[in-house]
């Protein structure tokens, strides 16, 4: 599939002040999302998944700042826009689904009004049309009796239904890009399946691009065209899903794969990655994964591995990627 990048993030660096320290949350991340593409972003907690995507669309806490980089959306650098201009784009061209629907829905506003509001705020359509479209969206999201449910408040829905209402809001103005931050992590597998199927249907219908953040390799591999693995605010590996499944070339990716417990694994010994993901308080100058990596050598502890292309569209930041590919671990 040859198509234009819709969003192109270039050398993004984001840092936060925390007490005396600086937290280097995103350290030179570059990638793009094509029109209609589904991109998965995976990595452990704290690896920078949310900060990367949210800062690119201008959502950043006040103790944080973007040190450098560009986020070109259809050619416009989002990082240069005013808050007003960003608000015009977010919710209109770029829809966002946050991880916790309870904190991003207004608890004292009827859900129908919240969906309508998303359209009216962006002058997407008339009041009348917004009402009709809200009913239509609720129906498409699999909420029974939309007309009655329009009047309900968020607490009157289950977690899975609230997540679908969030999706209705994010999709209301027919965005070209949907950013979904762990949209199913807190949900039951049955509800996860419902939500992903809905997302897939909407994506197809509108040729919408989707960037989905997830911890779950099952979700990433079954749902996405391409997968990015983040660690310590850096890209460790980027691959098409096919290559990701069969030819992962970064020890971190391999370690995460070995950590997955699936049905039928009862007799299998577990192989956890030792230690845990760090909070980065110094600019990385060597491989950030070295303290946990079974293949780490002197070189890894002294020299920062650069992302390099080891196959078509398959990028890895590891000095020993070739050996990983040859199945040393």
């Amino acid at each position, binding site marked *: 599939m040859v198509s234009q990048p819709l969003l192109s993030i270039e050398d993004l660096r984001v840092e936060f002040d925390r007490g005396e320290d600086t937290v280097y949350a995103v350290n030179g991340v570059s990638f793009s999302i094509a029109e209609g593409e589904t991109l998965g972003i995976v990595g452990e*907690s704290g690896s920078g998944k949310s900060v990367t995507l949210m800062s690119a669309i201008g959502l950043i806490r006040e103790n944080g700042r973007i040190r450098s980089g560009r986020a070109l959306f259809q050619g416009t650098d989002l990082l240069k826009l005013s808050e007003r201009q960003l608000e015009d784009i977010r919710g209109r061209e770029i829809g966002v689904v946050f991880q916790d629907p309870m904190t991003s829905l207004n608890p004292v506003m009827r859900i129908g009004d919240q969906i309508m509001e998303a359209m009216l705020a962006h002058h997407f359509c008339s009041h009348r049309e917004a009402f009709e479209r809200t009913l239509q969206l609720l129906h498409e999201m699999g909420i029974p009796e939309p007309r009655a449910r329009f009047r309900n408040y968020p607490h009157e829905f289950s*977690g899975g239904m609230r997540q679908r209402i969030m999706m209705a809001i994010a999709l209301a103005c027919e965005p070209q890009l949907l950013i979904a931050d762990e949209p199913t992590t807190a949900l039951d*597998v049955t509800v996860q*399946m419902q939500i992903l199927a809905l997302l897939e249907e909407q994506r197809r219908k509108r040729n919408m691009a989707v960037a989905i953040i997830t911890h779950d390799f099952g979700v990433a591999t079954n749902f996405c065209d391409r997968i990015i693995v983040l660690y310590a605010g850096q890209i460790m590996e980027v691959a098409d899903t096919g290559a990701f499944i069969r030819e992962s070339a970064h020890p971190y990716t391999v370690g995460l794969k070995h950590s997955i*417990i699936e049905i039928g*694994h009862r007799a299998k010994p577990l*192989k*956890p990655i030792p230690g*845990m993901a760090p909070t980065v308080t110094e600019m990385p100058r060597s491989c950030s994964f070295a303290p946990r990596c079974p293949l780490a050598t002197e070189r890894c502890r002294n020299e920062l591995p650069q992302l390099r292309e080891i196959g078509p569209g398959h990028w890895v930041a590891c000095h020993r990627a070739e050996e990983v590919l040859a199945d040393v671990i």
Partner: protein
Amino acid sequence: MSSEVLLEVHEVSKRFRVQGRDLHAVEKVSFQLQRGQTFGLVGESGSGKSTLGRLVLKLLEATEGRIVYQGKDITRFTQKQMRPLRQEMQIIFQDPMASMSPRMTIGMAIEDAMIIHRIGTKEERQKRVDELLERVGLPREVKWAYPHELSGGQLQRVGIARALSLRPKLVICDEPISALDVSIQVQVIQLLRELQQDYDLTYIFISHNLAVVEYLSDVVAVLYLGEVVEQAPAEELFSRPTHPYTQVLIQSILKMPRSLEERQVLTPIQGEIPSPFDPPKGCPFHPRCPMAVDRCRTTKPERRLIGPNHAVACHLAT
């Protein structure tokens, strides 16, 4: 391994009275648990897993049924009668932070339970805290840290250390790994397993992650609207899931495929979980069941054995 029966749960039900209506949280659940075994509980949110765990610990009073612990019927035990047993029965939660005071150091939090139960001298307790921290794989300095300074995985280890401080026999693990990264989940699962072997612990392991439950459990029960719809030894249940609901649960898990061609088609189950105030007549699963027949809408299927220790509540099960 001894084959001593530690816990027997007989036809236990719990109904909550909510705004004048009865909410059926747990309905006639029965199982037996041998010392050193793990009993897994799976089911969707609201299916009654935590309630059942709390009933066993007698943090909630059962509406009906009997709970027998080490041969003693504790169903109607008063809080005072329960006191000596409290030490033996511990619980580990999904969010260990919620049960810790933000102003207590980790060391104090672990020592706290021992103080409440008047165990040991100050020095003995301190020594035990050090031992426990080491046992759950935390550096000793963590003793002086406050909860907000630890990661989720570290906090869960603290939660485990606290539960172990009283040398329990039965530990209820209520979603202990759900909030953790897969890599950390595996570390905690490994720890729980080792501890079980070292101390002959008996677990009730609650999770909506079926694969992890299969991995850890000897026997597994699947709950739907408070009822056990299927119960069997773990290997049997996952190799021969028989209740349509168990099958749906297993099919809904997205597994990492071995190639692009093997990717799963996203096939959602129809409908929502019905209201627990007003469970459907007949089979509680019939509104969502892909195999439902007329009989399912009118007659409730009894739980019956379809193989050794394999019980299913479905008219069509064979």
